[in-house]
């Protein structure tokens, strides 16, 4: 079986995987990082979004072997020294979650949005969230949280 090694949340991580092992399976089942969720099997819901080399990707639609040598960040890697990442804090403050199932993917996707476009319009935020499905919130408070994290007032 092939061995993969990558950096996950700043720490080296390695393991034996099958060719077909998905990145999300490696994260959840080998590394026990269960913050990354699986909400569908059609690559559409975005509950599994993590960052690979700084870009948001669906970890259910990437092989662990494809991430060999990569830098991976999951929701567990956002907080520093027990302090929530500003995006996490904004989701909490603005009630951007209800059941929380979609939240790890939403937050990882939103962090990538602000890395790509520091001051997005409401429309750009909504378009960016195309690949993240939430069954609870109706998205409005998620959009407000992202606006707040971008330093936009009145969101």
């Amino acid at each position, binding site marked *: 079986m092939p061995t993969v090694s990558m950096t996950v949340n700043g720490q080296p991580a390695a393991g034996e995987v099958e060719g*077909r092992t998905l990145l999300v399976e490696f994260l959840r089942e080998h590394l026990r990082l269960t913050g990354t969720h699986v909400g569908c099997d059609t690559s559409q819901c975005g509950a599994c979004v993590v960052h690979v080399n700084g870009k948001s990707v*669906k970890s259910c639609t990437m092989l662990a*072997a*494809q991430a060999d040598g990569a830098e991976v960040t999951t929701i567990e890697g956002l907080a520093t020294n027990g302090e929530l990442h500003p995006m996490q804090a904004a989701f909490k403050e603005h009630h951007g979650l209800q059941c929380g199932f979609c939240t790890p993917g939403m937050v990882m996707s939103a962090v990538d949005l602000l890395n790509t476009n520091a001051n997005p319009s409401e429309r750009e935020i909504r378009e960016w969230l195309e*690949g993240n499905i939430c069954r609870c919130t109706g998205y409005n408070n998620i959009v407000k949280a992202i606006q707040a994290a971008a330093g936009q007032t009145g969101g």
Partner: protein
Amino acid sequence: MYNFNYHRAGSVEEAVQLLSGASEGTLMGGGMTLIPVLKQRLANPSDVVDIGGISALSGVSEDGGKVVVGATTTHAAVASDATVQAKIPALAVLAESIGDAQVRNRGTIGGSIANNDPAADYPAALVGLGATIRTNTREIAADDFFTGLFETALGDNEIITAVAFPVPDKAGYAKFPNPASRYAVVGVMASQGPAGTRVAVTGAGPCVFRAADMEAALSSNFSAEALSGISVSADDLNSDIHASAEYRAHLVGVMARRAVAAAG
């Protein structure tokens, strides 16, 4: 998912070798179509050859007045590329309209056109702009490349290396996206330039096609008004839960006018 051997190819030559050595090998670009297909057990390859890491296949360059997009260039990279935005803004608009941000971060132009999904966006760009597909063995005109539903002119183990786009004088893309998947219910690329006057339609039929009557009308007067009164027959168009053939035929007219208007 059935298991398979995974290989990361360092070069096109190595990828060809790996494919020919496999009992049932398949290429992988971004995996955004292949992995969902594997998950549904609709394919059972013995070996998956990943070409996503071949740096020579990635990126945009200019070559003899053409904009050349490497096969493994992601949709996000095409959408944000300065050369594409300056020379063929309609291509950047099209790439930006594909799927969602995460799909655009991984999916590649080579994978999209090799798959030739009837509702994919890129086939409209290649045919609508008169592009040339470069492979490891030859060049193929876009008009000859897309041969049918999920069918292309690619031979066994043939690898797309790049797509070369002539720079149009005017080009516009308009798409009526499926609200759930963002694939095109109907998408139209209209252009005028060195490749002539072209109107390419995706989503509507089993494979991308050119609308000859519209091209004839636009060749003397490239304006949305020139298209009024020209309709497309619903006869060979797709009918499914998303849209009837008649509705798609109607959308072809609307999207064509919008594409021409967007071309300015």
